[in-house]
């Protein structure tokens, strides 16, 4: 997918750089131009942050809305990684340790783990398959790859003393999942979102993992979900 963006701030420019396409001739699927109002809206959601950050997140929000409206895609706040070209995504309430758990996978399984996106990937439904996409909005440690990988498993993460994983009924988690995505206001996009989530949470295997911070946690999770 090609997206036409004209960032104003150096911060945004640098963030987008690894994903910049060489070709000038590529026709953009989405064009994003920010208005002052969109920046002010971001400042309202999260006051007290630097303006370049607002630009970056405002751009991403517009992309998420366009993807939802016209490209069968949705934003999902999670840490996404791939093993053998199969994507595993870890989602949890902020501060639970998604990124830390993903790091346990990298430390345990080494080069066979590819980080798709450590924080804000997109997911698209193409020919009946869900794909997880790397994006430049990739978390504190800037971990992502410009790739798309078929989604294998969704894992809801909770902290625990021991490492226990079980399969769960995905549609029961809708309320949680809606808190990890950008919810649109118009009926068409809302129905697109709910149609995709219904399919995703029904057809993709979903798990609940209670875990501590250890390599054993990664092994328990992978062995059960692979």
């Amino acid at each position: 997918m090609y997206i036409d963006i004209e960032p104003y701030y150096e911060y945004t420019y640098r963030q987008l750089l690894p994903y910049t396409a060489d070709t000038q001739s590529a026709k953009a699927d989405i064009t994003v131009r920010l208005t002052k109002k969109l920046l002010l809206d971001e400042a309202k959601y999260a006051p007290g942050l630097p303006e370049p950050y607002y630009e970056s997140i405002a751009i991403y929000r517009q992309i998420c809305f366009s993807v939802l409206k016209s490209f069968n895609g949705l934003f999902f706040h999670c840490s996404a990684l791939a093993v053998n070209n199969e994507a595993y995504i870890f989602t949890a309430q902020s501060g639970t340790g998604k990124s830390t758990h993903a790091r346990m996978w990298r430390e345990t399984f080494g080069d066979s783990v590819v980080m798709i996106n450590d924080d804000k990937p997109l997911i698209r439904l193409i020919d009946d398959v869900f794909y997880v996409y790397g994006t430049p909005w990739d978390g504190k440690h800037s971990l992502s790859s410009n790739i798309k990988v078929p989604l294998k498993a969704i894992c809801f993460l909770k902290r625990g003393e021991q490492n226990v994983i079980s399969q769960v009924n995905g549609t029961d988690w809708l309320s949680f999942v809606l808190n990890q995505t950008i919810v649109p206001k118009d009926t068409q996009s809302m129905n697109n979102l709910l149609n995709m989530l219904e399919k995703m949470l029904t057809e993709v295997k979903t798990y609940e993992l209670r875990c501590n911070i250890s390599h054993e946690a990664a092994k328990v999770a992978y062995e059960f979900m692979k």
Partner: protein
Amino acid sequence: MIKSKEGLLVRKFGEKYIIVAIDDMADEMHSLITLNETGLFLWKMIEKGTETDAMLSSMLETYDVDKETAENDIKAFVEKAAQAGLLEDA
């Protein structure tokens, strides 16, 4: 009259029915409401605008339930809907 606010979308999700907010309502309501079959039945009436008596007689016609249980169910449902901010002010 008991009537739902504008901007509430009701639809099937998996085995259940849900209500989500759209348009201007999306700024007011962020929670997700889940309905069972009876809940959906009552909600359909509330969407069009109804009264407690009409809901009671419809429920007694449709479901094998005694009057007292139906009355209590309706009362509880309407109270919950009001608390969740789903209803127009009477």
